[in-house]
């Protein structure tokens, strides 16, 4: 029989459904209902991995999410999953698991040599050893990273699909054990919308691990089944199994991670692997239970050493034996429940080693009556067995418990269950900002009353109420209390489920169990099994002067990594407190941070992946650009046509052709993406006076004006052309990327500062599609498509607009120019954008009309020295710096940024100013961002006087052109500058003005 450690009967497994799986290449059998861990235990696999730092052999140490050793690699190829806790993975047919941290095999691991040198691998070893010489760290790091670390991340694209949803309820109950079920039932009875989540495939929590419990006079699991059936039938209850509440944020926003297909041998199509529920609950009831605390004794990490409660879980829930002959090591009565159940299952208990001098408790009494050998005032002081526990050494304790007597008894055994008491699972309570009280009697942190931001109630053992009767009563109370707080009106009815109250007995808190020799001299007292940190490491950190528990945590890495110290933290801080001779609450806990358990990135991303990561905004003409083979550039979220390469052309060639074609005949640009704001109201002109630097009151109807918008700091924020539609009506344009921020900025002023102004703003960015035609033939082209617009210079001069019909479409035609050439921007309702574009292309064919993209637009505007906000400005540039004093009105009243412009620093002649730059070699194009210096030295650092903001090859000037921000640049016309390059070359150049082409500005007049 392969499952040598499977009991003949019992457990919540389905023995009619055998399951085949593989571990480290061996084919093994288990049953439906097993976890990977329970199946390994049933097969007698005690050695499952190697530890993180010393590569010590390790076995399964728990039966829950606190597992620190059995972190296995699951699946293969793109589906592989690192660091899966074997205790949380349900077994299914075909599951493949391997040990992560061993080479070549888990039995013979080369890394175990680290163990021989463990005396030097103490806390801070890497910090201390590899800091010199500092440059060599990168070399060391490569090897250190390879030796440490555990699982391997898949290298392929994740083929699974994940989902994420918003969710809401009145009462969220976290945990489907007795307290949680009782809470869910009582909350549901009020009519409240209840969501119940549990991380297991079935409800019952700790009841699944126990035996002989009764609720309302029936076997506990029968009560659980009935409760589950009742909840299932209620419309106002949502039940999520295999779902972990992993994060608790403000205002009861709780992240729930549901695993839908991991346990299925064949993954159904259409079902996501994981789903995150972003739950906004009015009230939260936390019934997350408690995690047993291991005792910290010498060499407490051998395969076969586990939590006492885990031994019980394997026997009762999975019908699997942790071993054949065991020792239970405890400081409290609860471990005797394990003793009794194991004896019932036919497992030999060689002895119970109890640190208490005078143990009290009903379970102990039962065990005593059953003839179990109980060694009081005793401790396990050592263990042996390299790959599997062989024996333990037991000695009597001194009076104060700080040392062990020298008379040592060796007890042969193949497993040990240890219990140091219970730690309430307070993670969610603390993530929610809840404080903790210290229960001196139980040696446990328990939740203090919750706060107002995150109203929640802890019930049951996560509140320190470990008895079943208390769990049920607290759950019932909390269910009604939460429903009431959530605003549900109901009449109190029903009563709490009942169970027999049991005396917990007494305890002896012995945080650090002494060994045969003083700490650190022989063997290791592990605190954190996942990080291989020991009690000696903690004491070393304290000797080196660390005092804050947060510092000690980071220096020793105790409580870090994926298990977040679920079994380590309280032991660690108690030992720190003891060493410092301080009270445990004075030392305090470290911060509990989300996630409670590791959550897949895929689940957090949900559908926001690949093309859906961020919106791609497209214009009505987008499909035309795609068909024309355009390359696209991201501008904000917009996809803008960047350039239109013809066959065989690279970007440089395409742009050169487009630039020349526009200047020679006519080019066409999709200008739809510019922000557009409809400004309406009798105070519209005054409003513009206040938001732009120049004056607007006298702008005639039908005329357009360029404006520069400043922030309150006087720095250029945005620019654009605004046109007057009517006396009380303007159309403002903004830069593409700034449309939404500018509207927000303006609304902010209207609603908070200038409530006296009668102005309404409406975003019309997307109402209009805009095609801009530019070049000497623009007028001829447009005249073919309109018969109701007089295009003469007199009727429609530069900086004027008119309504009319273009290609049969009602349009607004603006004679404005960003190219310096004769140019019309034709705006039509967006649905007609494509039709307009096509009509212009068709009619324009005789002029060899050339579509151009943003890159050509940039070259064309640079030839004219027109700025781009955000490229030639960086948030620290004023209009004066741009040599645009002409646009700053000296006469009108206040405008945003005006006062800042009067600051002394603003008139410093040495501010960075925008100038033109011509390279001495006309063929040389400066890289954008290049630094400029006046004096070249052999090597950096050199005094930098400025940097290149725009730089292009200009086909029309037949040379390179550039703009730069240079300290005091406007007074340095004609001065030489140098631009040292990364490759050692120095590009020589000269400061000029910023207009490189058509300096007289005749071309835009047509």
């Amino acid at each position, binding site marked *: 029989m392969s499952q040598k450690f499977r009991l003949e009967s019992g457990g919540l497994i389905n023995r009619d459904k055998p399951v085949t799986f593989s571990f480290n290449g061996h084919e093994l059998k288990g049953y439906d209902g097993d976890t990977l861990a329970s199946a390994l235990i049933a097969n007698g696999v005690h050695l499952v991995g190697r530890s993180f730092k010393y590569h010590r052999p390790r076995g399964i140490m728990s039966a829950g999410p606190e597992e620190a050793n059995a972190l296995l690699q699951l699946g293969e190829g793109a589906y592989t999953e690192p660091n899966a806790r074997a205790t949380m993975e349900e077994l299914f047919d075909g599951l493949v698991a391997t040990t992560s941290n061993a080479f070549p095999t888990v039995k013979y691991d080369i890394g175990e040599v680290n163990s021989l040198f463990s005396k030097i691998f103490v806390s801070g070893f890497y910090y201390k050893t590899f800091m010199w010489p500092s440059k060599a760290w990168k070399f060391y790091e490569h090897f250190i990273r390879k030796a440490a670390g555990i699982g391997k991340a898949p290298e392929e694209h994740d083929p699974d699909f994940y989902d994420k949803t918003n969710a809401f309820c009145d009462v969220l109950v976290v945990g489907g054990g007795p307290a949680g079920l009782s809470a869910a039932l009582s909350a549901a009875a009020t009519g409240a919308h209840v969501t119940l989540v549990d991380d297991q495939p079935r409800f019952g929590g700790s009841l699944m691990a126990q035996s002989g419990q009764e609720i309302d006079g029936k076997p506990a699991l029968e009560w659980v089944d009935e409760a589950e059936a009742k909840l299932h039938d209620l419309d106002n209850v949502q039940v999520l199994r295999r779902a972990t509440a992993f994060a608790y944020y403000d205002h009861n926003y709780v992240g729930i991670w549901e695993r839908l297909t991991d346990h299925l041998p064949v993954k159904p199509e259409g079902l996501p692997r994981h789903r995150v529920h972003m739950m906004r609950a009015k009230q939260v009831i936390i019934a997350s239970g408690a995690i047993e605390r291991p005792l910290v004794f010498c060499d407490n990490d051998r395969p076969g050493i586990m939590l006492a409660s885990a031994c019980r879980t394997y026997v009762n829930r999975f019908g699997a034996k942790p071993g054949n002959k065991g020792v239970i090591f405890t400081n409290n009565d609860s471990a005797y429940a394990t003793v009794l159940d194991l004896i019932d299952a036919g497992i030999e208990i060689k002895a119970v080693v109890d640190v208490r001098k005078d143990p009290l408790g009903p379970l102990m009494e039962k065990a005593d009556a059953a003839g179990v050998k109980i060694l009081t005032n005793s401790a396990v002081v050592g263990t042996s067995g390299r790959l599997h526990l062989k024996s333990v050494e037991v000695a009597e304790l001194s009076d104060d418990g700080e040392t062990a007597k020298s008379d040592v008894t060796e007890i042969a055994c193949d497993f040990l269950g240890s219990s140091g008491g219970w730690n309430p699972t307070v993670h969610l309570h603390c993530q929610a900002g809840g404080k903790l009280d210290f229960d001196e009697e139980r040696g446990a942190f328990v939740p203090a009353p919750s706060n107002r931001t995150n109203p929640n109630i802890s019930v049951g053992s996560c509140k320190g109420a470990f008895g079943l009767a208390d769990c049920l009563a607290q759950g019932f109370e909390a269910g009604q209390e939460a429903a009431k707080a959530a605003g549900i009106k109901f009449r109190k009815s029903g009563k709490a489920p009942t169970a027999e109250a049991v005396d917990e007995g007494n305890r002896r808190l012995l945080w650090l169990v002494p060994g045969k020799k003083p700490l650190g001299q022989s063997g290791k007292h592990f605190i954190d099994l996942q990080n291989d940190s020991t009690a000696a490491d903690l004491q070393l950190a304290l000797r080196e002067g660390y005092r804050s528990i947060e510092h000690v945590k980071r220096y020793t890495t105790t409580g870090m990594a994926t298990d977040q110290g679920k079994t380590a933290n309280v032991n660690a801080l108690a030992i720190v407190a003891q060493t410092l001779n301080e009270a445990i609450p004075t030392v305090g806990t470290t911060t509990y941070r989300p996630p409670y358990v590791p959550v897949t990135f895929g689940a957090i991303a949900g*559908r926001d992946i690949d093309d859906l990561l961020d919106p791609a905004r*497209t214009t009505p003409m987008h499909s035309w650009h795609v068909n024309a083979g355009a390359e696209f550039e991201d501008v904000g979220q917009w996809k803008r046509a960047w350039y239109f390469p013809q066959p065989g052309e690279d970007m440089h060639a395409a742009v050169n052709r487009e630039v020349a074609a526009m200047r020679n005949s006519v080019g066409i640009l999709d200008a739809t993406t510019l922000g557009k704001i409809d400004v*309406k109201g009798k105070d519209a002109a005054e409003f513009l006076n206040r938001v732009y630097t120049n004056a607007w009151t006298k702008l005639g109807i039908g005329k357009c004006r360029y404006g520069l918008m400043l922030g309150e700091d006087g720095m250029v924020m945005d620019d654009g052309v605004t046109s007057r539609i009517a006396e009380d009506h303007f159309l403002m344009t903004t830069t593409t990327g700034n449309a939404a921020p500018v509207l927000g900025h303006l609304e902010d002023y209207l609603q908070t500062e200038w409530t006296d102004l009668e102005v309404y703003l409406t975003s019309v960015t997307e109402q209009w599609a805009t095609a801009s035609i530019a070049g000497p033939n623009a007028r001829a082209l447009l005249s073919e498509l309109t018969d109701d617009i007089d295009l003469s210079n007199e009727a429609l001069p530069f900086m004027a607009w008119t309504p009319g019909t273009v290609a*049969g479409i*009602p349009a607004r035609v603006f004679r404005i120019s960003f190219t310096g050439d004769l140019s019309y921007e034709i705006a039509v309702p967006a*649905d007609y954008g494509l039709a307009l574009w096509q009509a212009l292309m068709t009619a324009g064919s005789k002029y060899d009309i050339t579509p151009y993209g943003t890159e050509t637009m940039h070259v064309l505007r640079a030839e004219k020295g027109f700025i781009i906000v955000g490229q030639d400005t960086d948030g620290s540039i004023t209009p004066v710096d741009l040599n645009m004093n002409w646009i700053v009105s000296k006469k009108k009243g206040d405008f945003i940024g005006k006062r800042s412009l009067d600051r002394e620093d603003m008139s410093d002649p040495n501010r960075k100013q925008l100038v033109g730059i011509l390279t001495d070699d006309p063929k040389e194009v400066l890289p954008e961002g290049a630094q400029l210096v006046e004096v070249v030295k052999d090597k950096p650092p050199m005094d930098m006087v400025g940097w290149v903001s725009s730089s292009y090859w200009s086909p029309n000037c037949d040379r390179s052109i550039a703009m730069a921000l240079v300290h005091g640049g406007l007074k340095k016309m004609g001065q030489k500058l140098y631009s040292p390059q990364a490759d050692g070359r120095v590009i020589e150049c000269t400061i000029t003005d910023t207009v490189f082409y058509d300096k007289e500005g005749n071309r835009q007049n047509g």
Partner: protein
Amino acid sequence: MDNFMRQGPLNDLGLVGRTSEDNAQVTMGDGGRPMVVNLRLDPANKAAMKAVATLVGVDLPQKANYFVEGKETEVHWLAPDEWMIVSQNMEGNELVSKLDEALDGVHHSAVNVSDNFAVITVEGEKARALLQKAIPLDLHPREFHTGMSTQTHAAKTNVILQQVSDAPFYKLYVRRSFSQYLWAWLESGSIGFGLAISS
């Protein structure tokens, strides 16, 4: 103006040629090209409110996040002084002219934004579950139900969400440049529900 020149923002998706999945539990569609006019007006001006009501055939709703139906129009509350007027029959510029005339001398703003939006319809058994993935408001009928319309966001876009009927049948008014993204996002979110495309 020839109608064939008109191209709605969802046309590029080729929905007409799309086949529906069997046993689809959610149906999505292009909600067409209704007239949409954005109106800003001080609701305290009773005479002006009445003048608008006469033109659009229904009193402007003053209850937050609701819409009302007139004979030819639907009026959505967007803000205390802002409404969205939707009609399948009216023409935007014409209504704007009439509103401007009726509100002459009154501070207001009526803007034709018909081309600003795409309308995506979502209906069927799983419609709410699908939208709930994208929308951070509680869509349970006790919080959001037929007759309501609200500005919110769906995935990473702004939308105006309207529940038209208990089926449930929803309409999402989305800025046109975001509409193909939002369609693709919702389609991706519908995996497992079965998706039908309404004609």
